[in-house]
Structure formats: structure tokens, C-alpha cells
């Protein structure tokens, strides 16, 4: 049926095989550098149209925003690498942040109690998601969508929909404070980035996680506990998303019910870009670059004075670009036949 898929260079002869390989490599580099050309072109156009984009204050904003979104993006990237998808990250972040604010302000606990509670909630939610996916064999997309709506209900239930305004200054310091002129969230991002990078690239569980995403059956047959690893990927994603929520609440100095809602799409787009940039390798670094690009895009749209409606359009378009590049680069890299339709 798919005549267009059969490769013109026959791979039966050695000569054909070499030619095919070269051809493949060429296309792969094109996809890889295509993304960087896109990024470069974008920055060139933006700086040309709006030179204020490069001002120190603006770059500072981009940096802080990147650091806040990066945690959810890392979590989502880990889940995607392991072959799942987590749609509840945004509301997990929101719920953790709200709970922290609630314990700090309404119940009057100190930071040393409220922060661990907020983070533990993320772990619990991730554990629930992981159980549903790894033990009940549910589709992760639907299971986490269910979790997301349960959390929306919980968020409204916690405060009845009102915003928590007053937060203690030591909590605000987490979001707005600086050390050596660099904002605190950036330090947190650096530490978390280094930790997730080392985990994914240098440790055995991290390698196995990547293997699961590649071929789960082969991974199971080689003696890896795929159930617990899948579970772990969701726990990590839940845990990391609480960082984003709590830091954003600390930065805004308020907690409201739709605090983390936008994170879902942003994390997803950044993580998809992340899997494309280095051809499915080094996903965490790729995700960081993807996050920076996404935040710059949103920043540039705001500079151009376009309304919030263009956020949806631009992110939808960027998502299409990312999946297009992702699918074709993967098809070339793994040499899988392009999906029949």
C-alpha cells in the first residue's frame, strides 16, 4: 500500500546499504540543525524588530521564567522518555503550591513544615498516577487526565476558590530573593538540572528508564523491573512539578486555584522540543534548551504587544513543529518504517 515508503536505494547490496546510510545521516542532520536554524532565525528576527529583547532586564525575566517552568518540563521529559505522558503536572504544581500557602497562612505553620508537606503531596499524586499506569495497565494519558480533574476539585475545595494573598516574607524570598545578584529559583534550577541530568545519563535506573521508552519488552526480558521504573518516572514527575508550583507561588506572593494550569502545555511543548533537539539523546539538556526557547517566544509575543490569544496560537504551532520534527527524526534514527495509515 505504501509505495512511497519503499526505499529507492535497495539495501540488498553493500553499495546500496552504504548509500542508504549516508542518505539517512544527511536527512538526520537536516532535522537536527533545522531546529537550531529555526531557533537562530527566531532570535535574529526578534532582536531586529525589538532590540529591547536583549536588554539585561528582559533577559533576567526570561531567565527567571525559564527556571520556574523548567522543573515541570524536566518531569514531563522523564515521563515521556519512559513512554508515558503526564497531564496532571500543572494541577499537581498548583495543588502543592496552594497547600503550602494554606499551611503557611491559614494554619500558621512554619516554612520547615509547609514545604515538605507541599512536596510530599506531589510524590503522593505521582505515586497514584504511577500505580494506575504500571499496575492497572491504564493508558497514562487518560489516567492522568482523571487525576487532573480530581485535583481541580480538590483545589477549589481547599479554599472554596478564593485566593490566598498574605504569605510570609521568608517564603517570598524563595521566589523573589537573590544571592550574588542571581535569583534563587535559578540556583534551584541549576541544582535540579544537574541532579536529573546525572540521574538520566549516568546512573543505571536512568539508563533503564530510557530503555523502557525504546523497547519495553526487550527491557523486561533483560531482567529490568519495568513496573517499578514506570512508577518511579511518574513519582519523579509529580515531585519535580511541585518545585514549579511552589516557586511560582513564592514569586507571585499569592496562591490561586488556576496557578499551575498553564504549566501542562508549556511543559509538554518544552519536553517535546527536548526530545527532538539531540535526536532523542540527552533529553534533559534538550528540555532546558526547549524551555528557554519557549519562554523567549512567549516573551517576544508580549513585547510585540499581541494579546493573550496569540499565546495559544503560537504554542499550538510550536507543538506541531516539535511533533513533526520528533516523529521524522525518530523514524530516521531508529530506521523504523514510517507508520502505516
Amino acid at each position, binding site marked *: 500500500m505504501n509505495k512511497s515508503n519503499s526505499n529507492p536505494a535497495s539495501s540488498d547490496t553493500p553499495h546500496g546499504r552504504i548509500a542508504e546510510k549516508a542518505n539517512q545521516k544527511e536527512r538526520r542532520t537536516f532535522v537536527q540543525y533545522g531546529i537550531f536554524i529555526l531557533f537562530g532565525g527566531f532570535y535574529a528576527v526578534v532582536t531586529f524588530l525589538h532590540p529591547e529583547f536583549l536588554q539585561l532586564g528582559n533577559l533576567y525575566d526570561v531567565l527567571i521564567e525559564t527556571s520556574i517552568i523548567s522543573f515541570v518540563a524536566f518531569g514531563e521529559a522523564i515521563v515521556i522518555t519512559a513512554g508515558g505522558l503526564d497531564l496532571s503536572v500543572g494541577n499537581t504544581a498548583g495543588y502543592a503550591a496552594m497547600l503550602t500557602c494554606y499551611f503557611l497562612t491559614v494554619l500558621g505553620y512554619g516554612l520547615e513544615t509547609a514545604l515538605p508537606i507541599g512536596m510530599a503531596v506531589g510524590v503522593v499524586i505521582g505515586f497514584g498516577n504511577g500505580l494506575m499506569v504500571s499496575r492497572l495497565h491504564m493508558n497514562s494519558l487518560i489516567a492522568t487526565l482523571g487525576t487532573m480533574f480530581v485535583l481541580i476539585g480538590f483545589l477549589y475545595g481547599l479554599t472554596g*476558590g478564593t485566593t490566598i494573598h498574605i504569605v510570609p516574607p521568608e517564603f517570598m524570598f524563595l521566589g523573589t530573593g537573590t544571592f550574588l545578584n542571581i535569583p534563587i529559583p535559578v540556583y534551584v534550577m541549576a541544582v535540579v538540572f544537574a541532579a536529573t541530568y546525572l540521574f538520566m545519563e549516568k546512573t543505571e535506573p536512568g539508563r533503564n528508564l530510557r530503555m523502557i521508552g525504546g523497547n519495553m519488552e526487550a527491557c523486561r526480558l533483560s531482567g529490568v523491573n519495568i513496573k517499578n521504573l514506570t512508577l518511579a518516572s511518574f513519582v519523579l514527575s509529580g515531585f519535580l512539578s511541585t518545585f514549579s508550583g511552589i516557586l511560582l507561588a513564592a514569586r507571585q506572593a499569592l496562591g490561586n486555584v488556576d496557578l499551575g494550569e498553564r504549566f501542562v502545555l508549556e511543559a509538554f511543548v518544552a519536553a517535546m522540543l527536548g526530545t527532538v533537539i539531540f535526536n532523542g539523546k540527552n533529553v534533559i539538556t534538550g528540555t532546558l534548551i526547549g524551555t528557554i526557547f519557549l519562554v523567549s517566544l512567549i516573551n517576544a509575543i508580549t513585547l510585540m504587544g499581541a494579546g493573550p490569544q496569540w499565546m495559544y496560537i503560537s504554542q499550538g504551532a510550536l507543538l506541531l513543529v516539535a511533533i513533526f520534527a520528533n516523529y521524522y527524526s525518530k523514524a530516521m534514527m531508529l530506521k523504523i518504517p514510517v507508520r502505516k495509515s
Partner: protein
Amino acid sequence: MKLQSISSTKEIFNNYGATFGFFVAIVFFSIVGKGFWSQQNLENIIIQSTSLGICAFGLTLVLLMGDIDLSYAGVVGLVGALLAGWLKEGHSLVQATLLCMSVGLVTGLINAALIVFLRLPSFLVTVAVMFLCMGAERVYNQGITTWITNNSALTLIRGHIGPVPAPIVYMFAVFLICWFLQTQTRWGHYIRGLGENINAITEVGIRARMLKTLVYVIAGILFAFGGYLETLRNSGAVMYAGKQLMLSVLTACFLGTASFKAGKYNFPGTLLGAFFLYTLMSGFTALGLKFYLIPVAQGLILIAAVAISSIRREKIEQVQF
């Protein structure tokens, strides 16, 4: 083939779990809830579930062939904004209706072009299309709610056809057509076949791409029709009307898999799922429960329905990109 013993309670629960839950819910709310069991209220439940049901029929078609189409969350809002806007600008009802249906047609074609011809994964493509539609909606209506004052448009939804309220007629008409086409015609069986084994279908000589394209277009038009009725029911285009339908439509389809045939999408099940959701909402209101318990209940029911329908699966389901 393995013989199934019908007497096994687990088997019956797997096959009819949601149907059972539905009747339990109705009996429970009728006894406990004040004013739940009245003709007016039951009629309202069916009328409210009309637009949800019609969108869910479109989604069921796509799910049957093994893909997913989330673009309805955007299409519903976009269609609503265009309908309200065009009626306000003084275009006739016929023109506005045609515009709405062509929006469904176009989004269906865009989905099909990207999924069938460029072979991109359906989940991601339709999410992107959903966001593009939401953006287009915002650009068109500038974030303002537009009310519909055109009387002939409003009688479409408030009127009666014979003794029956019009929306109920629309929903059952769409249901019967979809159900008949899917179960009684050859092409309907091929759609299910696409989901079961696409290679077998192509080997037999069916033009799978054409069939898939057709399904996406039909689904797009059904989403547009659902959005059209939703807008008329609200008598205006509310911001992001589709976002509120997003989970309910999916939940209705998945409840359907746990209603009549375990793990298989089917139209009677989807219909029952749509009624189930609004029965719960109405029942919660009758009991005087807090509004935020509704998303909690919906989420839990979705999880339960999917857990039941994936009970026979022995491997971890991976999302393919």
C-alpha cells in the same frame, strides 16, 4: 477461542459495570435527592447531555479506529463564537449554520491531512489543532461573551418537534444514524477493523486512508454540530465553552466501554455515559453538595471506567509519539 461463562460475576461486572452504576445512581438520587425524580428534571438531564452526546459520538467514531481526536475542545468554542458573531452581524441563520458546519469540515480535513497523510500521532496533532482553534476563537471574539437574540435560532433548541423537546430529537437522530451506519453497514465494520488490525483491512483492498479521512471529517462535523447546539442552549458564546466539555466527552466514551462491551467503544454505551454524567451533576445539585465535588466525581468515574476496561490488558500501555 476461549469460551466465556456468562455466570461469572467478574465477567458481568466487566461488561455491564457502568450500566449497573447508572441505575444504582438513578435509584439512589431518586430516593435521597429532593425533586430528582420528576419529568421536568429527567427531561432536563437529557436536554443538557445533547451537545456532549453528539460530540462524544464523533469521538467514539475516531476511537473505534484506534486514534483519538481531542480537537472538539477547540472546535466547540470556535463554532460558538462564529455562530454568535455572525448572527449579531446580521447574517441569516442559514448562512451562520453553513459556516459552522464548514468549520467542522475544515478542522476534520486538517486533522486528516496531518494524521493520515503526514502520519503524525493523532493525540498530539489534535491537541495542537485544539489550541489553534482556541486561539482563533479568542482572536475572533476578543474575549467578549456574545449573546444570541435571533428568535428563529433560539426556537431551534427551545421548540418541540411533536410532543418531544427538539434537542432530544437531534440527539437520538444522530445516535440512531451513527449506530445504524456503524453496526449495520460494511463500511461501519471496516472502521472498527481499522482499529483492530489495520494491515488486514488494507490487505483486503479497502482504501484505509480514504476511510480514515472520512471518519475525521464526519467527526469534525459532529463536533461542530455539538458546539452549535451548545451555543444555542447557552443562548450565547461563552469563552472557551469547549474546555468545559473536554473531560466530560472523553469520560462519556470511556464509560461506554464499561457499559455494554468491556473494553470496546460502542454508541449505546457512549449515549449511556453521557446520561450518566449529567445524572450525577443533577443528583449532586439535588443533594445540595458543593460544586467542586463534581470534577472530583467525574475524574474518579473516568479512572474507574478506564480501570475496568483495561483489566484484561497484561502489559503496560505506552503512549506512542
